[in-house]
């Protein structure tokens, strides 16, 4: 064959050696988490215990759930700044529904049961996300600007609904059949807080969707190259709207759990949480340009941030220092991302050989269900 001379002989052998640098780089979030746990276990006798891990994990659950939604958006090449506000609005709306909805025309007060509240709040999250998605996909508003606007609008509505006050009574009444809101924040399944269970379930669903569903492949391809995806018949606009809706739903779920944990729903809840979620995704190795990233990394990122800030609280370091440390970790993570992707590019162009040999197709993007579990 004419062009066979052009292709250098390739084998996957020479890159299979044990490369400590690469291992540390690619598993950096995991090693960072181990390092954080080891260091704080030395510094404080209270850190290394199952009960403390469970408490910290239930804090992580909020960020983790937001980060899963954020990952989908970032894989698409977008950004969602509205999730923190959506979280706050979701809590307030849940609180509002718990107080009873007065229908003046009928002269009745409706007390929806908890499952209805949960569904309505999730629908609200999806609706907010849909507004984001339509602005971005149909009207070509840059994601940063569209979600920034929605962030303000959602926060504004949350403040308007309560006049800036907080719903403190989320207990419901047994005779009205709307008790049980505290279940999300306080109950445990086999000793594990419900928030963490929800996080794990969402992570498993997310991994399945990303790795095994056509939607997942569409998402990776639109994030990697929207034009190529479109010409291959991928419904790029629908995918775009869908990821913002999913992100909105994740924010709503996080809002429910947070207000249940706090037993109150305040309109300012979740302020700046969108940035924490973005940080978790980035620490987890996803590229802000889209197309690269997975659930496992994102969860690790969320745990790194959560375990670090709780650890600093436990050893009694000022919260101002916490802010400094968190910022440093984020910058370091992005720095390492840049190093990793530069190495990858170099590798593929220099050797002119396959960079991920010996793997069957479809497993290149590695987040999968079992890995999701390790993190929790």
């Amino acid at each position: 064959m004419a062009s066979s001379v052009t292709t250098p002989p390739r084998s996957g052998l020479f890159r299979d050696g044990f490369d400590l640098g690469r291992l540390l780089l690619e598993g950096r979030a995991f090693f960072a988490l181990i390092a954080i746990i080891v260091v704080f276990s030395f510094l404080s006798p209270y850190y290394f215990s199952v009960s403390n891990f469970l408490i910290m994990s239930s804090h992580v659950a909020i960020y983790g759930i937001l980060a899963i939604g954020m990952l989908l958006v970032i894989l698409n090449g977008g950004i969602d700044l509205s999730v923190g506000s959506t979280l706050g609005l979701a809590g307030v709306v849940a609180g509002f529904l718990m107080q009873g909805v007065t229908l003046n025309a009928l002269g009745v007060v409706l007390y929806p049961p908890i499952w209805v509240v949960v569904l309505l709040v999730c629908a609200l999250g999806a609706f907010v996300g849909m507004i984001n998605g339509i602005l971005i996909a149909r009207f070509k508003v840059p994601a940063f600007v569209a979600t920034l606007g929605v962030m303000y609008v959602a926060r504004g509505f949350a403040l308007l609904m309560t006049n800036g006050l907080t719903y403190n009574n989320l207990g419901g009444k047994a005779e009205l059949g709307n008790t049980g809101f505290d279940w999300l924040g306080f109950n445990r399944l086999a000793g594990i807080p419900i928030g963490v269970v929800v996080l794990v379930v969402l992570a498993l669903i997310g991994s399945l969707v990303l790795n095994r569903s056509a939607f997942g492949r569409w998402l990776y391809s639109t994030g990697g190259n929207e034009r190529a995806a479109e010409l291959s018949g991928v419904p790029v606009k629908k995918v775009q709207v869908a990821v913002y809706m999913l992100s909105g739903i994740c924010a709503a779920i996080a809002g429910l759990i947070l207000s249940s944990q706090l037993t109150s729903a305040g309109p300012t809840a979740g302020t700046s949480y969108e940035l924490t979620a973005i940080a978790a995704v980035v620490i987890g190795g996803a590229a802000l340009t889209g197309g690269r990233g997975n659930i496992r990394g994102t969860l690790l990122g969320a745990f790194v941030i959560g375990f670090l800030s709780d650890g600093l609280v436990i050893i009694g370091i000022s919260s101002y220092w916490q802010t400094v440390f968190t910022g440093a970790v984020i910058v370091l993570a992005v720095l390492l991302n840049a190093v990793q992707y530069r190495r990858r590019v170099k590798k593929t162009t220099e050797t002119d050989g396959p960079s991920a040999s010996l793997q069957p197709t479809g497993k290149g993007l590695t987040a999968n269900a079992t890995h999701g579990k390790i993190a929790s």
Partner: protein
Amino acid sequence: MTPSPATPPASDDAVLSARNIAKSYGNVHALKGVNFDIHRGKVTTLFGENGAGKSTLMKILSGVVTPTSGDIVLDGEVVQFSSASDARDCGISIIHQELSLAPNLSVRDNIFMGREIRTATGVDFAEEARQARALMADLEEDIDPMTLVEDLRLGQQQIVEIARALSVDSRILIMDEPTSALSATEVEVLFKVIRDLTSRGVSIVYISHHLEEALQITDYAVVLRDGAMTANAEAKDIDLEWIVRNMVGENFDLGSPPTGYAFGETALSIENVSVTDASGSGYSVVDRLSLEVKAGEIVCIYGLMGAGRTELLEAVAGRMPLSGGRVIVEGDDITRLSIAQRIDRGLVLVPEDRQRDGLVQTMSVGQNLSLASIASFTSRMLMSRSGEQAVVNEAIRKVHIKTDGGSAAIGSLSGGNQQKVVIGKMLATNPRVILLDEPSRGIDIGAKAEVFRLLSERAAKGLAVVFSTSEVAECLSIAHRVVVMRRGKISAQFGANVSKEEIMAASGEAVHL
């Protein structure tokens, strides 16, 4: 047209020489001890397929890459470049194949980017504009220096790139595929500029996949194959056949139209299609064009840059909106359908720019190949891994991609294999009609022949094939029919036995080059 008349061999000394240059990346030997000379005031052309080592060699000569072993000899002295600016300081500049312009800046600002003419009070914009205007006049291009680069068409952008390299007074100018986006007239002007430069003693290193064109301008030919130099001669002693033979190591042609079967029903019918220019000028880039293609037929659309080929194919595929007319595939009007629905009906497009529109760089070869046919291995919401592997394996086998099971990164493939991935991806959807926009762009002659053979095999099985090209030689390969486009209209149609001159005349191209 013959190569420029032989100038006296008095100036025949080497200004820059590569001595046993070798470059290895791990176990891969990109260059295996190459020796060659760049002659003072002459054009030296490097021929070779993709992956032969041309680009690596040029990167070494321009200081971007350091060789594993061997020396670079400049004016009799061994030099070592540790960076591109080292090389530039020695008077070596390079025009890269990929454009490196800032689209948001004006032509003037691009030409002087990083080398602004400074005065005590700031930048001397007037002087820059004057010099830019003079460069454009040299290149016979009517571009105002204040035009934004993004408002220029691709060919003009390439002219700006060339102007930028010319604006630095270099002794050695390396041109990597400078003509890939130029029209015949622009190529002619570029060649005039090159001759002017050489007469002033500038040495040119020229790289092109367009062999005939390169043969017209070059004084010396150097052929690389598989990282080694296989041949080296003066242009007056050689011909096209010699180059091809040394490049690929055997004789072959681009094929002939497949025969021995009857065409089927009309597969694609384009009726009075018009497309308005995307920039909003209201000008019709495709003007009430009609074309019918039968199942099994191969139609070649030839035209210059700006003739409307790309716009026509993209509009038919659903990428650009039609401003009038209808598109019918196997009797169904698909004018209002989305791209995905058109793929379902059997109409697919292989785009012109495979990096920008064809491939998802973040995904593996296999995931790229299966992207357009995910539905075929998805049931109950989940993709079947074995189903996908089967699709990928079949595609790799059918289009002869040199890779393992498909898990390699897409960037690790050569240009020709990447193009085969794009074609294989679309063929995996089992189309009835395939449109290919410049399928041979930037791929080597061996891969080109393979792509054409693949298309004629599929045509013989009833696939309707429409491909566009800007190389006349390709019209005379596998096409049953040659359609020439000029200013958005079909200016002529020919059978397979047309001559090059007839095609070029119909396209408005100067026959004498």
